[in-house]
């Protein structure tokens, strides 16, 4: 119920009641106990604060979404709106010299505006909330890319303190989360608009016929959600000291999951701020614990999905058991069934979590081997999978315990993982940044803890790394341009498929392409479009470009995946009338070179990158001197030399 207050005393009976009435809280406690039992690093003050920080952004977003879900709506746009608000703040303050205070107001106004548009479309345009906010999801994301021109913008220092700690230990994001949680609880419990949310969500027609101005309230509800999204965006950007146009991608789903885990119904009419907070904490505890336990990055996603389902199932079963008519005699068989169901499910959850994690986490305990963490930007791409393989092979050879995490191209998730590495006291950290700016705060923290940091593939800005192990992207880009220029005899039309906007690799390679093409004035670039380093997008973008430019003779793709997508789009033209040059030299790419569909690939040596990074991490642990810049050579692989080349 919305307003029930638990006045039960401090007795054990009161506690039991509290747990029985609140499936999510039970699940959280079970999780914490399980994690503490499995990992000695979990139950420390530092780590628990980490969990708080890592829950903060999701929780703040989820508080806003709670308003919407209680009123029987849905808001899918919060992640994008968060990114847009942060981008507006950074853009106005950093790029246009607007006073920081005004920039902060602008960011909040942006959130309100996005929410008002959602609310207007829903209340007056009669659009289903799912559709209206789905549209806003796309619009807000697009606008933040437009404003930032695809690159991260440095966040003003004064606002970045929101990502720091107070007194050296109390993280500000946790404070902001608690504050926003209190505001949300107050709005839901005490204010007119909050009480209206429950009435509208419970029965919109009854609310309307009782004189509630449903349409106006909806406007305000979505606007509130927008405000919370803006605050979440600012906190997120402050943690990373950088406003990323691609930040908080997919966070709306985490936020909705947190709200639902917290006991709200998507049908509306129920939900509490405290439940939402617990939901967000459950997600954060899971991610943190699975990192600490060194569970494989792929299995982490499986475990998280299973726990979300189990947590909500626990609550549903509990409710069903508890929903027997009041008059049918409370405390009778209904009460017993309800207790049994709760205990039963709690037992299942415990066994599932303990079983899964102990089965999945690589046995790493109690050996004297040096420990190294490797945080990869993504494992969705063969290039990074090869970095991992090279690193793992080398670690095995040298007797190093290597923990690998996958940031799924999300800078803030990477910040969480680096934080977890730092607090679990590893000997060294290898980081492959999602974003060179956004990783700086986390690396600074590791430096402070005197943990050596090796960057691999991409550098870290504004923070000291002991070494950067990378291929030279600019040189590689120039080589790619040169290869296509020579192949076409210095004359012809080409298209360029760019990498994901906002990543350093995309920028540097594009720079290299431009530099290299200067030597070939006869080559005309008829189109440049981003395809996000993704094979499917490469296929789609190339198909579209072929409609406009059927006569292209060459394609430069900023990685092999996009090149392979382009080859699919070109069909039989590939390797015959159109020459495609890729980048990276992944196994698939090299196979295509063998087959002749890919003319050339500028090959990095990803497994070498991984290997050399581990070597240097071990050197740093042993206190030996490491070079600051280690260039792993790139080379152009064509049909002639492919046989002898291995990554």
């Amino acid at each position: 119920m919305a307003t029930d207050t638990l006045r039960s005393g401090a007795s054990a009976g009161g506690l039991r009641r509290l747990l029985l009435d609140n499936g999510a809280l039970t699940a959280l406690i079970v999780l914490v106990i399980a994690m503490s039992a499995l990992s000695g690093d979990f139950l420390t003050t530092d780590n628990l604060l980490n969990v708080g920080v890592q829950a903060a952004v999701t929780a703040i977003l989820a508080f806003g979404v709670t308003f919407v879900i209680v009123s029987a709506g849905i808001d899918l746009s919060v992640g994008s709106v968060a990114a847009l608000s942060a981008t507006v703040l950074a853009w106005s303050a950093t790029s246009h010299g607007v006073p920081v205070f005004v920039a902060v107001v602008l960011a909040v106004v942006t959130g309100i505006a996005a929410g008002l548009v959602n609310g207007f479309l829903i209340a007056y345009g009669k659009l289903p909330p799912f559709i209206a906010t789905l549209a806003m999801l796309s619009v807000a994301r697009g606008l933040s890319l437009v404003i930032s021109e695809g690159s991260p913008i440095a966040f003003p220092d004064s606002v970045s303190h929101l990502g720091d700690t107070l007194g050296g230990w109390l993280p500000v994001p946790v404070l902001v989360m608690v504050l926003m949680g209190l505001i949300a609880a107050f709005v839901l419990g005490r204010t007119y608009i909050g009480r209206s949310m429950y009435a509208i969500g419970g029965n919109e027609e009854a609310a309307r016929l009782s004189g509630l101005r449903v349409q106006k309230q909806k406007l305000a509800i979505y606007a509130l959600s927008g405000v919370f999204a803006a605050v979440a965006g600012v906190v997120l950007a402050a943690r990373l000291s950088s406003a990323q146009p691609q930040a908080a991608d997919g966070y709306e789903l985490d936020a909705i999951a947190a709200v639902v885990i917290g006991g709200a119904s998507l049908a509306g009419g129920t939900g509490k701020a405290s439940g939402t907070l617990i939901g967000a904490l459950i997600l954060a505890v899971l991610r943190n614990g699975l990192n600490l336990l060194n569970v494989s990055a792929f299995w982490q996603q499986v475990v998280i999905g299973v726990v979300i389902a189990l947590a909500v199932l626990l609550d549903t079963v509990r409710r069903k058991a508890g929903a027997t008519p009041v008059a049918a005699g409370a405390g009778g068989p209904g009460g017993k069934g309800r207790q049994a169901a709760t205990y039963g499910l709690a037992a299942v959850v415990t066994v599932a979590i303990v079983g899964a994690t102990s089965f999945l986490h690589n046995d790493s305990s109690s050996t004297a081997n040096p420990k190294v963490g490797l945080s990869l930007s993504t494992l969705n791409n063969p290039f990074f999978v090869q970095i991992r393989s090279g690193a793992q092979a080398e670690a095995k050879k040298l007797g190093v315990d290597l923990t690998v995490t996958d940031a799924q191209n999300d800078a803030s998730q990477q910040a969480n993982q680096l934080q977890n590495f730092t607090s679990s006291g590893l000997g060294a950290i290898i980081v492959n940044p999602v974003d060179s700016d956004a990783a700086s705060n986390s690396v600074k923290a590791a430096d402070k803890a005197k943990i050596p940091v090796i960057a691999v593939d991409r550098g870290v800005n504004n923070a000291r790394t002991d070494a950067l192990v990378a291929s030279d992207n600019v040189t590689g880009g120039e080589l790619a341009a040169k290869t296509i220029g020579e192949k076409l005899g210095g004359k012809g039309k080409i298209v360029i498929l760019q990498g994901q906007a906002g990543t350093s690799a995309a920028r540097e390679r594009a720079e290299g392409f431009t530099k290299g093409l200067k030597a070939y004035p006869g080559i005309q670039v008829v189109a440049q479009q981003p395809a996000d380093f993704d094979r499917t997008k490469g296929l789609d973008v190339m198909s579209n470009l072929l409609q406009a430019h059927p006569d292209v003779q060459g394609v430069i793709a900023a990685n092999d995946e996009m090149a392979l997508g382009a080859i699919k789009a070109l069909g039989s033209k590939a390797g015959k009338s159109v020459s495609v040059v890729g980048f990276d030299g992944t196994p698939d790419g090299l196979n295509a070179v063998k087959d002749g569909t890919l003319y050339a690939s500028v090959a990095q040596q990803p497994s070498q990158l991984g290997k050399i990074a581990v070597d240097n991490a071990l050197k740093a642990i042993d206190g030996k001197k490491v070079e600051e810049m280690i260039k792993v050579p790139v080379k152009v692989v064509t049909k002639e030399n492919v046989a002898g080349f291995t990554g």
Partner: protein
Amino acid sequence: MSDKDELLRIEGIRKTFPGVVALDGVDFDLRRGEVHVLLGENGAGKSTLIKMLSGAYHPDGGRVLVDGEEVHIRGAQDAERLGIATIYQEFNLVPDLTVAENIFLGRQPRRLGMIDRKTMEADAEVLLKRVGVNVSPRARVRELGIARLQMVEIAKALSLDARVLIMDEPTAVLTSEEVDKLFAIVRSLREDGVGIVFITHHLEEIAALGDRVTVIRDGKSVGQVPATTPEDELVRLMVGRSIEQQYPRERGDTGPALLKVEGLTRDGVFHDVSFEVHAGEVVGIAGLVGAGRTEVVRAVFGADPYDKGTVQVAGAALRGHDVGAAMAAGIGLVPEDRKGQGLVLDQSVEENLGLVTMRSATRGGLVDLKGQRAAAARIAEQLGVRMAGLHQQVRTLSGGNQQKVVIGKWLLADTRVLILDEPTRGIDVGAKVEIYQLVNELTAQGAAVLMISSDLPEVLGMSDRVLVMAQGRIAGELDADQATQDSVMALAVSTNTVNTEKEAPRGH
């Protein structure tokens, strides 16, 4: 003891819901080839009884026998297997499927895993011919009028080889011509040996169609009589007491007109509706379902728009389609669909009672929760809402207590013109009288009450004046002293109004 023609026998059936005993010892039996009428007031337990036969409810006590053997009907599948089909007042048809698809829904003839449309439509054609309705099996159900929807429902029941056909007030929504047609179909089904349970409020239909009558009152079967029994006797059985006792209307002096409606028109729905309700007066609106009564009062309350006409409260004109303005002028609406429109079922008694006054109890965006609780406690006490406490979920209250909560939220707002739309539908007799007492108190304090009811005795017993609506128009006005069921019904079915337009199709 068992009769070879006996299809169905019910012995001492009992069913309770939280706070209400719906059925307490009902006996009933049905033979092959007869029309057995179930007669009783609203809330007497007829619907509960037929829901036991269709498998929607399971009895708490007593026995149900089919062909002399005890059965337990636990769901629609069980009922179907036993050959029992039910046609509810609200049809169970899917608007966007065709007639044939609806008839065979879930049982479509299949060939190689695909639906065999040809066979299905041919079979549907035969069934439709049998019920004597001229509808294409390929027509979409959405496009059909009420009467044809009912025929489709009957065809669906026939397709199940139903031996027992239960019809819940099938004539309530039909014109007299359509009623004649329905009767012809029912008679031919009876000749085919189908046993028919027929529920109706129209006493004259009993003599025209029925064979036997079982009367249910307050959840008990109080008698089984032949259909030839005089109407007076049937009424006595049904009500069980004199009408004066059941409808304790105390008429007082009436004051000036509080609500004045002039020429209210919404194209295709209602036309040129004019009436007044004075302070201290109860005006009833009678008429058939679909006559436009609910639509008129919703427009008066501002819940729906209207095209022409004016609404005045105490002499001041009201803006149309603005619930806020109507409320500010002192109008309150207790809607027809209590659960769907009157209550937030998952919220507490306290929250529901405070819904209307929430805005006025708000200062600077904050709701005065303490004040709201005190007010809710006071009104719940005054209305005698039977509940475990103010925190009880409204969903778990009985119908009568739920209705008290809906009325209570308007009383808290000092409502001067209270509109009651079917205020006692599905409410037990005891709670009904309590609600009538409330109406008396309200009018004694100078409020005006406008009451829609399909329950003729209620309209006659509780109103000071009766407006009768037919086909979207006011067909006439009767003084309560002179009005009789016959005179009201005569106006309700009258088609001699200047109306030439067709009744607008109503969505289902």
